[in-house]
C-alpha cells in the first residue's frame, strides 16, 4: 500500500520531470531552415532583429505581423508605410555591409543573387537567401520566412489562404469575355514582355486572360516590336515610366488596344504591387482585374 503510493508518486515525479525537460529543450530548440541556395541556416533562437534587403521579403515579414522585428531594410522597400522610417542599408545588389553589421541583426534576409551574402557570412552574420519568382515560390518563401521567425507553420498557411482567396475574388470579378481577351504586359521599353511563365503572367492566367507571349519564350523575353504589332493585343498593360511614346512606335497605332484606347497605365506604386512576388499579389491581381473590367464589356 505504502509502497504503491511511493511508486505512483515517483512515477508522477518522473513524468513531470520529463515534461519539464521537454518544455525547456523545446524552448531552446534552435531554428533550422534550408534557404534557396540549398544551405542550412541554424538560428539559436527566434531572431528579434531582422534586416531585409528585398522588398518582397520585407512585405512578407510585415504581413506575418512581425514588422516590429525589422531593424533595417533596403532602399527599395517602401511598404507598409512603417518601414519607411527604418534605416536604409543600400540596395539588394549593392548592400552596405557596414550599415548592416552596425544594426547587429540576428538574421539578414537577402535575394539569392545579392553580392554581399558571402561577405556578411564571413563576418559572422546569419544570412537566409530567398528568391521568390513564381506564385509557388511566394508560398514556399512565406513558409521559410515564417520558420525563420520561429512562427507556427499555421501562420504562413493562413496568410497564403487569404492571398489565394483575394486572387480568386479578383478572378471572379472579371466578366467571362476575358477568355477572348489577348493581353500584352510590357515590363520595360526595350521591350521586355512578361511571359506566361513569369509571376505577372501567372496572375494574368489566373484572371483568365490570354497572354500574347507563349510560355516557351520564357519569363521575360526581349521582343521585336513587330511581334506585338502582329499579335495585335486587345489590352496593353504598362507602367507609366515606360508608357511615354508607346502609341507612337511605328505601326503600333494599328494595334487594337491602341485604337480602342484599351491601355492600362499603372502608376509607380501600382506597378510595384504588380511586379513584386510577395504577399501583395492579391492586390496586384485586383489592379489588373480592375483594368480589364474597365475595358471589357460585360
Amino acid at each position, binding site marked *: 500500500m505504502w509502497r504503491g503510493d511511493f511508486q505512483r508518486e515517483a512515477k508522477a515525479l518522473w513524468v513531470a520531470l520529463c515534461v519539464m525537460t521537454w518544455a525547456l529543450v523545446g524552448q531552446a530548440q534552435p531554428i533550422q531552415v534550408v534557404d534557396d*541556395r540549398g544551405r542550412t541556416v541554424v538560428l539559436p533562437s527566434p531572431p528579434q532583429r531582422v534586416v531585409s534587403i528585398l522588398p518582397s521579403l520585407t512585405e512578407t515579414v510585415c504581413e506575418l505581423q512581425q514588422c516590429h522585428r525589422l531593424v533595417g531594410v533596403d532602399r527599395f522597400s517602401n511598404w507598409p508605410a512603417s518601414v519607411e522610417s527604418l534605416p536604409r542599408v543600400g540596395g539588394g*545588389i549593392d548592400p552596405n555591409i557596414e550599415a548592416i*553589421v552596425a544594426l547587429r541583426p540576428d538574421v539578414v534576409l537577402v535575394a539569392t543573387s545579392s553580392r554581399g551574402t558571402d*561577405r556578411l557570412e564571413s*563576418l559572422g552574420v546569419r544570412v537566409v537567401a530567398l528568391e521568390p519568382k513564381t506564385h509557388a515560390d511566394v508560398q514556399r518563401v512565406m513558409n521559410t520566412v515564417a520558420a525563420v521567425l520561429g512562427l507556427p507553420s499555421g501562420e504562413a498557411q493562413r496568410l497564403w489562404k487569404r492571398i489565394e482567396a483575394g486572387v480568386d475574388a479578383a478572378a471572379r470579378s472579371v466578366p467571362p469575355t476575358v477568355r477572348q481577351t489577348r493581353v500584352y504586359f510590357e515590363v520595360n521599353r526595350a521591350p521586355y514582355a512578361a511571359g506566361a511563365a513569369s509571376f505577372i503572367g501567372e496572375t494574368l492566367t489566373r484572371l483568365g486572360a490570354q497572354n500574347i507571349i507563349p510560355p516557351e519564350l520564357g519569363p521575360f523575353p526581349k521582343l521585336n516590336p513587330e511581334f506585338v504589332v502582329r499579335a495585335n493585343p486587345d489590352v496593353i498593360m504598362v507602367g507609366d515610366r515606360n508608357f511615354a511614346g508607346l502609341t507612337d512606335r511605328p505601326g503600333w497605332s494599328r494595334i487594337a488596344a491602341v485604337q480602342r484606347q484599351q491601355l492600362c497605365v499603372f502608376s509607380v506604386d501600382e506597378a510595384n504591387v504588380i511586379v513584386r512576388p510577395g504577399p501583395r499579389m492579391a492586390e496586384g491581381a485586383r489592379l489588373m482585374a480592375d483594368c480589364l473590367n474597365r475595358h471589357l464589356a460585360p
Partner: protein
Amino acid sequence: MQRTTWLAYGLFGAAAMLALLGLGVGSLGLEPIWVMLADPVAAQIVWDIRAPRTLGAWAAGALLGLAGAVAQGLFRNPLADPFLLGSASGASLAVALSLAALGVSPFAATWVIRLGLTGAAFVGAVAAVLLTLTLARGVQHTFRLLLAGVVVGMVLGALTSMVTIMVPEVLQAMQAFMLGSTGFVGWSAWSIMAVVGALCLVAAISLSKVLDGLSLGESTAQSLGLPLLPLRAALVAVIALATGTAVAQTGLIAFVGLAAPHLVRAVVKTTYSRLVGLSSLMGGLLLLSADLLARGLIAPQEIPVGVLTAILGGGYLLWLMHRRSS
C-alpha cells in the same frame, strides 16, 4: 634620381594617411572609433570592414596601376590600359553566365556557389587573355596582340549582352559588377590581392629591361640581345594575373590603370624599373582616395567607386592634356 625617391615616399605617405582616415569614414561616420573598445560590433566595423576595404582599395588600385604601366610599355602605346587584353569582358561574361546559371539548373547553381562570383570572374579574366593569345598566335607581334585583344573584348562583351537579354533578371546584378565596388573586400580578399600584387611587382621590376628596350622600338630591343618571346609572354602573364585578381575582387574599375602611369610620368621621367613601382603606388593612392570619397560624399549612402574613378581620372587626364598643349 632624387625626385623619384621623393615621389615614392610622398605617394606612400599620402596613402598611409588616407588609410588611417579610412578607418573613420563610412555610413556610421566616426562613431565606431570612439566606442570601439567597449563595443565589439563597432570594433568589428573598424577592423573587419573598414580596415580591409581601405587596404583592399589600395591594393586593387596598385594592381591596376602596375598592370597599366606594364601594358603601356608592352604595347608601346600610352593609351593602353590593363583591360586591353580582354580580361574585363572575360570577367563580365563569366559573372553574367554564373548569375544566369543560378536560376537555370540546381546542378549549375551548386557549382556557381562553390566557385563564387569572385572565382568565376578570375577564371573568366584569365581565360579571355588566353583566348587573345590564341587568336594572336602567340606574343611575337604586338600589333596582332592588340587587335586580338580588341576583338576578344568586343565579342565577349556582345556575348555578355546576349546572356543578359536571355536572362534579364541578371541585369541588375550585372550592373553592380560593372560599376565596381570595394565594399565586399574582406581580409582574405585583401591578402590575395597583396600577395599577387607583390609577386607581380617583383616580376615586373625584373622584366623592366624588356620594357625599356621596347620603348626604343622593337628592333632595338631585339638588337639588345633580349630573348623577347618568353619575356613578352611573362609580361602578358603579369598583366593577366594583376587585372584578373583586381577585377575579381572589386569589379570593373575604370581609368586607374590608364591614368596612374600618366600621372607618374607627368611628375618624373624615369625608367620602367622605377615606373612600375611608382605607378602601383599612384594607382593605389588614386583608388584609395576615390574609395574614401565614395564612402563619405553622400554617407550613409555610398557611390560605386568605379563611377568616381572614371570622373576623377578622366577629369584629371583632360586637365593634364590641356596644360600640355597650351
